[in-house]
Every structure is written in structure tokens, then in C-alpha cells.
């Protein structure tokens, strides 16, 4: 038994305390533990596992991007380097004579007024 029914009445009205003492809260129908356990485990799942997955995905994307970038720049072999080689060699643009070399020639052979000699 708690002491709440015997606590001195600060307001000078013991009847009031007695009235309040009759008001009892309903008991929990069932423990909240199963739900709390599920929610905390779910929280754990949503806290580190997806973050880890996102981290791996981000790292993979960054690696692929770096590889493409380096290969495009010619630092490593890869699809970028093949594409650049193709472009520089003009194989893709030969049919229209628009290789990079052709572009440089066009720029160098244009005078300051923008007209070709």
C-alpha cells in the first residue's frame, strides 16, 4: 500500500485526498513489451542496415564514376578510353569529316574575322 492515502492534506481538506484516492487507473490489458521489442528492433534495422546499404551503393557509384572519368581522360583502360580513342581517331565521324583533327584544322584556318581564306 502506498502512502498516498495517508499523506497530509496540504489544502486542509482530507476529503479531497480521499476522493482522489478512489480514482484508480485501468490496468494495462497486456504488456507493451512485445510491441516495444518489435519497434526497437525495427528501429535498429532502419538505423544501421539501410545506412550500410546506402553507403555501399554510394561507394560503388563513386568507384564506377571515377573509373569512367579516368578512362575518359586516358589514365586507365575502360569504356571511356575506347570512346575517346574512337572520337580522336575519327572513326565515328569520318563519314561527315567531323573528326577532332578536322575541328582543329577548321579553327586554325579561320581568320580573325571569322571567314575562311
Amino acid at each position, binding site marked *: 500500500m*502506498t*502512502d*498516498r492515502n495517508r499523506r497530509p492534506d*496540504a*489544502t*486542509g*481538506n482530507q*476529503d*479531497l*485526498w480521499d*476522493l*482522489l484516492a*478512489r*480514482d*484508480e*487507473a*485501468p*490496468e*494495462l*490489458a497486456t*504488456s*507493451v*513489451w512485445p*510491441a*516495444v*521489442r518489435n*519497434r*526497437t528492433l525495427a*528501429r535498429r534495422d532502419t538505423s544501421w542496415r539501410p545506412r550500410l546499404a546506402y553507403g555501399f551503393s554510394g561507394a560503388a557509384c563513386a568507384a564506377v564514376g571515377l573509373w569512367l572519368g579516368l578512362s575518359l581522360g586516358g589514365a586507365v583502360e575502360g569504356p571511356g578510353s575506347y570512346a575517346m580513342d574512337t572520337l580522336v581517331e575519327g572513326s565515328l565521324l569520318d563519314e561527315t569529316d567531323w573528326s577532332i583533327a578536322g575541328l582543329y584544322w577548321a579553327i586554325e584556318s579561320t581568320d580573325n574575322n571569322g571567314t575562311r581564306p
Partner: protein
Amino acid sequence: MSDPRPTDDELMARIARDEESAFRLLVDRWERQVHAFLWRMTGCREEAEDLTQDVFVQVHAHAGHYCPEGKFKSWLFRIAGNRVRSWARRRKIIEWVRFDGFRHDRRDEAHGPDAGLEIDQTREMVRSAIAELPDRQREALVLQRFHEMSQQDIAAAMNTTEGAVESLLVRAMKSLRGRLVRPGEEES
């Protein structure tokens, strides 16, 4: 041999180390009190049960930040108080839930038609009077009256001063006395 009844602070330290058994023990120890507090604040058993879950989820989430100073109860009821205030804001409730919610909750209880009719009436009268208190007064009163917390602990739970708590309690009691005490029992 380990202590058969670890303190709340010890349990919190173990929860911070992710010991599920400690968390379960803590929930078993406090869930009824938290639920009773939230029921008195919301007036709805189901809402109180949902909020009780929320409170313990918060306890678990913040276990690593808990300072073991022997004030676990105040810390726990601060979380519960914050949670119920947040719930009230979300529900856009300006005033706390009124008498009907309480009566609805109690209707399904196993009282015979004649059993304790006067007691039921008294309970409803008390609940109605408590429900009509301003929220801060009600929170202070519920913590003091139904959870046997000292004014110091209530102040910690409500993030205020002991003087403010005393003021809230005096005003709450004055208001309750005006509502509950029959005319013949009033002080002269």
C-alpha cells in the same frame, strides 16, 4: 552472484550496451506507471497504450545519453510528459480530453449493475474535475498524487522549478476543491 534486483541506472547502462533482457526488465517494471500517467493525461486507454510504447522506444533510443544520477523516474516521466504534449499538439487538442473520454473508457469494466454505483459516480466526478484542469496543473497533480513524486522530482520531470511546481499544485488543489467538495464541507 549478481544483484537480483538491479537499479534503474544499472538497467539503463545495460540497455546502452544493447542488452535486451535489461530492457525487458525495465519495461516490466515501469509500464504500468507510465500507462497510468498517460491514461490520466489523455483520457483514452488505447492512446495511452500507444504512447506508452512510444515512451519506451524513446528510452531505448536515448539510453546511451542517460546520465545515471538516480533520477530515472523523473527522466522517464519527462519523456512521457513530452510525448503526451507532442501527441496533444498533433491532435490539435487545445484543451485536454474531457469527461466523456474517461466515462467511455470505464464503461466496459466488470461492475455489476448495483456494484459500487456511488463509487463509480465519485470516480467519474473526480476524473471530470481532474480532466478540466489546465494541462500543466494536471500533470503536476497526477505526478504528485498518483505517482508519489516529490516536488523536486516533479520539477525535474516537468523541466521547471520547485517553486513553479508548488504554485501549480496549489492552484490545482484550489480548483479541485471548488469542483469536488460538497457545499456543506467547504471551509468557512
